[in-house]
């Protein structure tokens, strides 16, 4: 080893120089992201004009020009329509939503009994929240409570009729209550049903496979309204005379069957992604079919398709609005029914009511899709290749 003269080697780091002016700061970001080319510049200007226009319209309509309080439609009418607002006024009539809010939430559920709905909601959130937080403990207990025990509590609370609660018939239900109950039951029923159908479709037994394929493809090939139509017009013909189904139950059956066919396809995707070695490994351990599926395959497959499952849930949540076509009043149905109220008939009522419903649906769906993305990222880390 030879001694080298190291004097020319710098011993401390050079001071970091600020980035060149053209690469740093707001100016550069704007240049790169908004005005990179002449076409970009034109698009930016157009986009800016559009965004400003749209934003000012929306904010003006929904907030600055909106009418927040009032007891009837005169609050939202212009001078020439018989109200007090200046002519040409255009704004949201939130007073309408305000006056009907309780109805939008509960439908015609008896006022004195509404605490039962609220209590159900609180229990629902209390059970759901820790289930969604990955780090919360007691997952298994929590899941059992949520999927197996909660339905009974909710049934007792919402319908009642025994153990000291008075009976509330389902035709009185309405609004967000119906939307959420339909979605919850749809989810709880369609997941296991979908798993069974997916297993059936991949089964080696030809009869089972054929039946599953027929069911899945038929249901997926027709619109949900047709299924609901069948549930409400044909189901009564299929059962012996004198045996009738509650309209709510019929809608539930329709929605759940529909969702389970879509769920089955999502789960099948997960099953196909599991390497053959996993099946063979399970077989070689001497596990039976249900042990193999329940302990080895399903946990992996379901984990893979969580985003797909959540997307199916979102689709189903949105699809619950279709029950209004068979004269049931979910959130959208009850909003629409109230639009016909002569007390509140103004040119702005329809827009306001529908925008309110849209916001509620949007919050739920957006929340679900964000959660799905969060889970996707979390699960991804477990599979780093």
């Amino acid at each position, binding site marked *: 080893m030879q001694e080298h003269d190291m004097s020319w080697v710098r011993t401390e780091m050079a001071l970091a120089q600020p980035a060149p002016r053209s690469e740093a700061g707001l100016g550069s970001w704007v240049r790169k992201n908004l005005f990179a080319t002449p076409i970009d510049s034109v698009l930016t200007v157009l986009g800016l004009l559009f965004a400003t226009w749209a934003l000012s319209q929306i904010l003006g309509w929904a907030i600055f020009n909106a009418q927040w309080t009032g007891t009837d439609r005169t609050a939202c009418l212009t001078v020439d329509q018989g109200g007090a607002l200046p002519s040409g006024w255009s704004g949201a009539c939130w007073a309408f939503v305000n006056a009907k809010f309780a109805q939008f939430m509960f439908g015609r559920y008896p006022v004195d009994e509404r605490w039962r709905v609220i209590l159900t909601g609180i229990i629902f959130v209390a059970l759901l929240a820790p289930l969604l937080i990955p780090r919360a403990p007691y997952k298994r207990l929590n899941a059992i409570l949520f999927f197996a025990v909660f339905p009974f509590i909710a049934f007792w609370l919402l*319908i009642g009729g025994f153990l000291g609660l008075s009976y509330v018939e389902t035709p*009185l239900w309405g609004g967000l209550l119906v939307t959420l109950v339909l979605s919850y039951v749809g989810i709880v029923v369609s997941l296991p049903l979908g798993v069974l159908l997916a297993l059936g479709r991949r089964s080696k037994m030809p009869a089972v496979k054929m039946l599953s394929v027929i069911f899945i493809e038929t249901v997926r090939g027709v619109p949900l309204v047709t299924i609901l139509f069948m549930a409400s017009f044909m189901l009564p013909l299929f059962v012996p005379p004198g045996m009738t189904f509650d309209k709510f139950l019929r809608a539930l059956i329709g929605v759940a069957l529909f969702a389970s066919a879509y769920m089955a396809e999502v789960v099948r995707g997960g099953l196909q992604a599991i390497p053959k070695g996993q099946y063979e490994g399970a077989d070689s351990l001497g596990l039976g079919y249900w042990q193999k599926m329940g302990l080895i395959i399903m946990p992996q497959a379901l984990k893979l398709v969580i985003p797909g499952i959540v997307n199916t849930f979102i689709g189903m949540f949105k699809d619950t609005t279709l029950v209004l*076509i068979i004269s049931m009043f979910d959130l959208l149905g009850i909003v629409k029914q109230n639009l016909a109220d002569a007390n509140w*008939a103004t040119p702005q009522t329809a827009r306001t009511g529908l925008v309110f419903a849209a916001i509620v649906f949007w919050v739920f769906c957006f929340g679900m899709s964000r959660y799905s993305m969060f889970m996707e990222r979390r699960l991804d880390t477990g599979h780093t290749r």
Partner: protein
Amino acid sequence: MKNTMIGIIGAAAFGVMASAASAATLDDVKAKGFIQCGVNTALAGFSAPDDKGEWTGLDVDFCRAVAAAVFGDGTKVKFTPLSAKDRFTALQSGEIDILSRNTTWTINRDTALGLNFAGVTYFDGQGFMINAKKLPGVNSALQLSGASVCVQSGTTTELNLADYFKANNLEYNPVVFEKVEEANAAYDAGRCDAYTTDQSGLYGIRLTLASPGDHVVLPEIISKEPLGPAVRQGDDQWFDIVKWTYFALLNAEELGITKANVEEMKNSPNPEIKRVLGVEAESKIGTDLGLTNDWVVNIVKATGNYGEIFENNVGSGSPLKISRGINALWTKGGLQYGVPIR
């Protein structure tokens, strides 16, 4: 005891309602303790929920009268709001026991759809309503050539409309809706020039519009619309009960028996009144029908006679202010004719 009963009913109501012998609707109804009655979703004067969510209207009161005849209590009835489309399936499947939803009696419905109409609680005819403020020159339906007409789908109205315009060689654009509310909203928003349905309905709908004063009902009546309650075929006993409830209402009016004087009337010397009210010695009329002998007393106590029901819901005692017209008793030049209770 009562609690458990309600509990059982509650559990059953949510799920599947099964009952043993379905051929006898009366037994079923007695077993469950109330009558399930199919009504319109919202039609002022005939069936519409009021501010408190209580159902009111002529069709609704008829169901109450049947409940009073069966149970002696006009409140033992539950209402199922139905659209024009699901009304017949609901009745056929046994979901409801009576369909009292301004339904027109036609031969097709009586035969091919398997219904039995128990009578005509309201003689109606189809008419047109227009916005007189927007269309000042129009005062006859014959001037409606080229108009857009709002109509509810699956009704006799829709068919009459097609026939009428065809017969008179007029053009029109049908704008068809599933539910009354949708058609109302579309008409009110100016989607159509004219609205057509039964005239009674037009008066009711007019009240729910944003500015009722602007709208007029045109004079033409283009069809016969006998509206009445219907039951399933194949149960004569139940059919008789519903039919005779209707006749009892008419007879009560004819004999001057009202909600207010029904108790005094029991002591009336008039043998016909005695017979109708079941206070005649050895009376068997009620029990032969499968009810109690004071069934007419119960009906009148619950809802009043036909005239009272009419005036309260659609006549002078209501915002609709429809005159009796052909719905007056036969003795007063109308068509309502109560078959004798004897």
